[in-house]
Structure formats: structure tokens, C-alpha cells
């Protein structure tokens, strides 16, 4: 990495680049893992400087004032299911952490706050492999944390590990490498928290105005649910987080995952109308 790039990285984290320079630098960041690692380290360095200031709590009434201002200017936000996080970023953080600590990424850690198994029911995480016309589900017995953030972290670690090491995916998925030219992917889903990650690769480019919708069908109850629109933009691959409503009836350990291409632009679609591009609606 040359001095000029290092200088740009410093000015980037100090917010000293103009918008044009910033955009150009962010393009670089997308393709250069070492640069991303450097930026993350510089951000942590600055974070330490800010936290090193004498810490003065904000006046206690301030949160109420903020809430009042939000309510007075309230425009309801979309509460439709949306796939909210482009996971590939976190994968980069993982790489950064692993490099910094000199350790490999590890899989799950059982939390002391973990959800005790209901009698006769072993909690599982579903690992779903998908290609252009089929899907395979394996229910892996796993104790997941009840705490929402911790549960997210556990799933994230699983998804990240498979992203880095697809050869560790169980069963059929091992023989279905992600490099499948007709599109392939996998999902990690916790039926209890209704949180999951989906990874996709090599999907065909969408027609203009169309979107990729992620669907889940519970094979036990035959309930079908839309998990949201995958915000692929101009990419053909990515790792994404999704969550279903807490009261979603999707809860068994036999859930089919599939992606369709739809002309719709919001996730209110009650059933798929478009072409199946990945996975299968039955298992």
C-alpha cells in the first residue's frame, strides 16, 4: 500500500475528504480487504481518542426531548420485512478481527443465557443449501441465545464461517459449491428467534424494474411467508440478514427457502408470481 493511499485512509476516517474524494475512496474500499482492515484499525484508534475525553453523561431529560421531537415529526417507518444488512461488510470485520488477533474464526459459543430446550424438542438451526432448482435443509441441533443481539451474533458467526469456508457446509451443500454458474446459495435460520442470513452467488442479472424476493415455506404447516426483497442493486452476490415477525408461523425444522424474480417493488406480495431463480418451494 503506498503512502498516498495511507494518507487518504487517514483523511477518510477524519472526515476530511470532500464528497467526490470520499466516493472514490469508498469504491477502493469495496475491493481491497487490506485497505478495509487499515481503515477499521484507524477508526478504532480514533474511537479511543473520543472515548478518552472526560466522559460527561447527557442531561437526564434529553432522551425525552428527543422522543418528543421524533413524535411531533413522526412519519411511520416501514415495518414490512426488509432485509436490512449487507453482510459482506461484517465478514470483512471478521477477517479484520481474525488477522488482528491471529486466530481463526470460531463457530458457536453456548451462552449461559441460552434458551433451555423445551421438553421433547431439541432447538435447531436450519442450514439450507440452494441451487437454481433445488434446496436441501439440514437441522443442526444448536443451543441459541435468547438475547436478541447475542442470538444475532451467533447466527452471524455461523454465516460468516460458511462464507469463508463453504466446504464446512453440511451434507449436500458440500457437493454444491458456491461457484455454480446458474446461481447458488445457502441460508442459516433460527426458527425460534426467526432470524437468519442468506448468502447468494451468481444469480442471473435481474430484468430492469424487477426484484428478487426471498420466500420461506414451512413444510409442516405449509405456511408461506415473504422475508423481504434482497437489496442486490447491481451485484450478483452477497450475504444478507433477514428477520421474520416474532409471531410468524414459520417455526418447524423443515423450511423451504426460495427466491423469485418479481415485478413488485414492495414486500406486501402475498404469494410468488414470478419466476423461481434459486432454491425450491418444497423439500
Amino acid at each position, binding site marked *: 500500500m503506498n503512502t498516498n493511499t495511507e494518507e487518504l485512509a487517514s483523511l477518510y476516517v477524519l*472526515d476530511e475528504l470532500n464528497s467526490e474524494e470520499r466516493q472514490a475512496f469508498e469504491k477502493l474500499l469495496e475491493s481491497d480487504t487490506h485497505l478495509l482492515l487499515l481503515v477499521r484499525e484507524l477508526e478504532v484508534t480514533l474511537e479511543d481518542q*473520543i472515548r*478518552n475525553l472526560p466522559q460527561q453523561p447527557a442531561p437526564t431529560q434529553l432522551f425525552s426531548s*428527543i422522543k418528543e*421531537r421524533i413524535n411531533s415529526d413522526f412519519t411511520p417507518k416501514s415495518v414490512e420485512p426488509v432485509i*436490512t444488512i449487507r453482510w459482506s461488510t461484517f465478514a470483512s*470485520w471478521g477477517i479484520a478481527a481474525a488477522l488482528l488477533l491471529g486466530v481463526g474464526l470460531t463457530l458457536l459459543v453456548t451462552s449461559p443465557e441460552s434458551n433451555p430446550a423445551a421438553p421433547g424438542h431439541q432447538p435447531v438451526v436450519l442450514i439450507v443449501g440452494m441451487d437454481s432448482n433445488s434446496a436441501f435443509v439440514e437441522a443442526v441441533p444448536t443451543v441459541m441465545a435468547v438475547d436478541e443481539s447475542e442470538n444475532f451474533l451467533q447466527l452471524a458467526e455461523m454465516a460468516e464461517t460458511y462464507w469463508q469456508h463453504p466446504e464446512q457446509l453440511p451434507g449436500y451443500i458440500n457437493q454444491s459449491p458456491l461457484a455454480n454458474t446458474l446461481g447458488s446459495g445457502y441460508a442459516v435460520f433460527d426458527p425460534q428467534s426467526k432470524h437468519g442470513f442468506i448468502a447468494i452467488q451468481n444469480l442471473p442479472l435481474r430484468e430492469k424494474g424487477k426484484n428478487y424476493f426471498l420466500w420461506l415455506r414451512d413444510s409442516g404447516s405449509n405456511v408461506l411467508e415473504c422475508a423481504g426483497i434482497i437489496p442486490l442493486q447491481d451485484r450478483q452476490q452477497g450475504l444478507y440478514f433477514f428477520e421474520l415477525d416474532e409471531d410468524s408461523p414459520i417455526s418447524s425444522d423443515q423450511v423451504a427457502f426460495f427466491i423469485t424474480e418479481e415485478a413488485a417493488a414492495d414486500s406486501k406480495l402475498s404469494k410468488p408470481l414470478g419466476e423461481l431463480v434459486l432454491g425450491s418451494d418444497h423439500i
Partner: protein
Amino acid sequence: MSSTAQQEAAIEEAFLLAQVGVGDYEAFRKIYDRYSTPLYSLGLRMLKQPPEAEEALQDTFLKIWNNAAKYDARKSRPFTWVVTIMRRTCIDRIRKMNRVPEVVTFESADDQDWATPETVRQTAVRHETIDQVEQALKEVPDKQKRALELALFSGMTHSEIAQAMEQPLGTVKSWLKRGLFQLRNTLTKPAV
């Protein structure tokens, strides 16, 4: 905070921001609880006056509420993202007040005795971190440190910093980079 703990906190905070992005008040409250103290402290450092810092903090959290859905973890860590919003808000206020940006220093941190409700362990860990950061700052040459202080807390652009320090722009950019790298190298150096 250890690197691992910092990574985990960052991932959790990105998750909370995603929740805020779809209108989750509870997640917003958690983000407020985590960030309000360091952001308010930054506001006080930049604006000097508590009422101004309070206004800036309110504006910042409104911006977080309205823009959380746009947060992109590819571009920055969650804390960096909110600090950038707070700094820009403070800079706007400084300019509206038509105030000449003041020179503020890392060292003046010692001058004030602001109480923070912390557990004994948190206090010990924070003091350890502060000691490390202060030690790291001591190793940064004065001019580089001053350039960093101006960039972080005064709201000056690097051109303004160059003017204030009567140095060519290229020199200031180089000082900022070298100062920041020096801090990074010292803070990530394994303890002997």
C-alpha cells in the same frame, strides 16, 4: 476494551442501527444509552457550552433516527458513523455562531472533573484505556498531535488547519497521517 469486545460491540451496534432503521424505539434507546455519553462529551469539547452541546446531541440523535436505514457497514463502524454525524452537527453550529474555531487539545481532558456513573470494573478498565491512550499520545510529535487535535475537535478543514499552522497543505496531510499511524501503532502494540 479488547479488540474482540470492540468487534462484538460494533456488530451488535450495527444490528441495533438496522433495527432503528425500521422504526424500533427500543433499539434506538439502546443506541442512545451506548452513545449519548461519548457524543455529549465530544459536543462539550467542541462547542464549550452545555446548552449548545445538548442541542447538537438532540439534532444528532434525530439524524440517527431518520437516517439509520442508510447506515452502510461497508463504509464505517457504527461508532465512527455517529461520531461523524455529531462532529458535522457541531461544525455547523460553530459556523452558524460565526465563531472562530478554537484550539482544543487532548491534554485539557485532565482539567475537568466530570462524574460518570460507572461500575468499579468499568472505571478500572476505562482508566487503563485512558492510560494507554495518554501514553500513546505522548509518543506523537507535537506538530502531528496539534494537527490531529485541530482536525478532530476544532471543526477546521485540513486547508484551514494548514492556514492556522502556517504550513503547506501537503505537510499537514502528512502530519495527520503520521500522527494517526503513530497512535495506531502504539495502541495496537502488544504489551510487554
